[in-house]
């Protein structure tokens, strides 16, 4: 199939539909709305359910119900809407049914704004809903990658009976760029044994997240954690750019990773041996490759469109063995490649330290700039 110029939100919607999405439930919120709008036209056109819910609470619980039938289902939203969905996500995780969530992140906290941001990292990667559970989190950096990861998201959700979140930001969602959409896949015909459908005279199936007996709940928790260990073992994805001979390594995901790549290329032209590690799975986090890079690199620069949320995961791997610096923009401000290049040069020029916290040093510098 040929490439076409397509908006990120629309591309993800169409990719989901072609991957066999059987039902979509959502609620309008900028900068995600085109995803819902596209499916509002396309799903009925091919005879599949689309419901614009009364709220994000409604949408995620419709997903929960439909996910209990074992069908491919998804919802999408943006930061404040995803906050409302946290209740349902915890229940879905507690019931061990597969579902896909797209979060097109915007500036916050609160109502914030509708500009691109990455402030939902902690909410999506480190929980947000109550109880012990993880989301498997995919973070594309282009429209094409968003398309490719959408089909993967459904496969992973079903393989592990897990929630898979696609963490976009407003710029990937809103940006138009050439992408190749996959061909239409047939709907899956096999229904998992655990899925409710009516007993038809057989044994009844009950799907619930309640477990009043603490030891029984703990057994369930253990099962979830073992599954997560399996996911950590099998599903780590990342992309390394110029990292083989890199003395300095930038770490960034999504749009921040993409902007950093421009800066890394510019630095390479200046003769700086710098590379980029772009995690594609934020959870599971690519710890092993980062650990290997820690042995070789002189220093790290973490770049995010938030106040350093992934930074903490990087620091947990590097463990003070090498200096880590941070550069971020918050509140929907998107950094320029030149800003990142300046930070790379700062890394090279030094002085570097493993003392203190990189966020504190960054905040001091940022306060001087934006006051």
């Amino acid at each position, binding site marked *: 199939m040929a490439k076409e110029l397509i908006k990120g939100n629309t591309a993800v919607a169409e990719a989901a539909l072609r991957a066999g999405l*059987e*039902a979509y*439930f959502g609620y309008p919120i900028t900068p995600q709305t085109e995803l819902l709008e596209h499916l509002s036209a396309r799903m009925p056109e091919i005879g599949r*359910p689309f*419901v614009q*819910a*009364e*709220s994000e*609470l*409604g*949408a995620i*619980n*419709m*997903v*929960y*119900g*439909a*996910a*209990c*039938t074992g*069908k491919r*289902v998804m919802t999408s939203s943006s930061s404040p809407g995803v906050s409302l969905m946290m*209740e*349902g996500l915890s*229940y879905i995780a507690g*019931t061990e049914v597969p579902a896909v969530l797209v979060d097109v992140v915007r500036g916050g906290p609160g109502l914030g704004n509708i500009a691109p941001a990455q402030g939902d990292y902690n909410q999506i990667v480190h929980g947000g809903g109550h109880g012990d559970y993880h989301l498997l989190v995919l973070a594309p950096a282009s429209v094409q990658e968003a398309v490719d990861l959408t089909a993967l998201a459904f496969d992973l959700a079903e393989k592990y009976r897990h929630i898979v979140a696609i963490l976009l930001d407003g710029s990937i969602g809103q940006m138009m760029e050439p992408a190749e959409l996959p061909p239409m896949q047939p709907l899956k015909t096999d229904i998992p044994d655990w899925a*409710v*459908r*009516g*007993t*038809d*005279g*057989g044994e*009844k*199936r*009950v*799907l*619930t*997240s*309640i477990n009043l007996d603490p030891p029984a709940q703990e057994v369930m928790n253990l099962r979830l954690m073992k599954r997560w260990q399996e996911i950590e073992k099998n599903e780590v994805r990342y992309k390394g750019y110029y990292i083989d001979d890199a003395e300095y390594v930038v770490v960034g995901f999504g749009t921040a990773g993409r902007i950093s790549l421009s800066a890394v290329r510019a630095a390479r032209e200046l003769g700086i041996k710098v590379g980029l590690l772009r995690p594609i799975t934020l959870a599971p986090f690519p710890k092993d490759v980062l650990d290997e890079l820690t042995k070789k690199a002189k220093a790290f620069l973490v770049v995010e469109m938030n106040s350093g949320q992934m930074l903490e995961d990087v620091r947990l791997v590097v463990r003070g063995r090498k200096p880590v610096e941070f550069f971020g923009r918050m509140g929907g401000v998107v950094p320029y490649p030149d800003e990142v290049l300046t930070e790379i040069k700062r890394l090279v020029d030094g002085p570097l330290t493993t003392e203190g916290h990189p966020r504190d040093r960054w905040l001091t510098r940022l306060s001087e700039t934006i006051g």
Partner: protein
Amino acid sequence: MVMTDVPAKIVYERPEALDPRVTHYCPGCTHGVAHRLIAEVLDEMGETGNTIGVASVGCSVFAYNYFNIDFVEAAHGRAPAMATGIKRVYPDRTVFTYQGDGDLASIGMGEIVGAASRGEKITVIFINNANYGMTGGQMAPTTLPGQKTTSSPTGRDTDRQGFPIQTAELLSTLEGSAYIVRRSLHSSREIRRAKKAIRTAFEVQKHGLGFALVELLSTCPTNWGLTAAGARDWIEERMLPFYPLGDYKVSSAVAELKI
């Protein structure tokens, strides 16, 4: 003793749709009656094996233990949304929610109004016992003016704590609602009427006529501090004046249904 060859005739037995289990409900509570009526109706309609139930949060959180039916368990108030998700992917299955008053009329008001306004083709069995039963008898959206509960210890003061919600009346104003009625479980006569209404509510779904809800006034002797008989009287004397029984919405298509 005279032995006869006349075979015993079964006049009363456990419906297939009910599992042979003892419930956790308090003596004198009418949850068990409501469960049985639903089970009888589904058996009579031949829908038991074709049904998916959605349990809610409250005393009936374990309703799925008592039905021999595929079941899911919703978050507090969200049962109509879950039922929507199931019904939309399985339009040929019977899908029902079983919700109490705290669940449906307080925390779940958004979901129930959304489902009703969309004309979602589901059946809702709504248990109104004028308090939060599972958590020990707090004030519910249905608690009557002056009624004492553990969170309105001097009686519900409408000036500070507002007024009870008449759910059937409220939902009957929505165009998507096809069948909205209130019945009671406090006497055998009313129980028979309740069963007819439950049957109609499931037939409405089977015929794809829209959203159907049966509100059932129910006893809660434990939290009301009454005997089983006293609780039945309390429905008659206290609840009926504020929650009149009746048909609040019967769409023209439903009125033409022959059962």
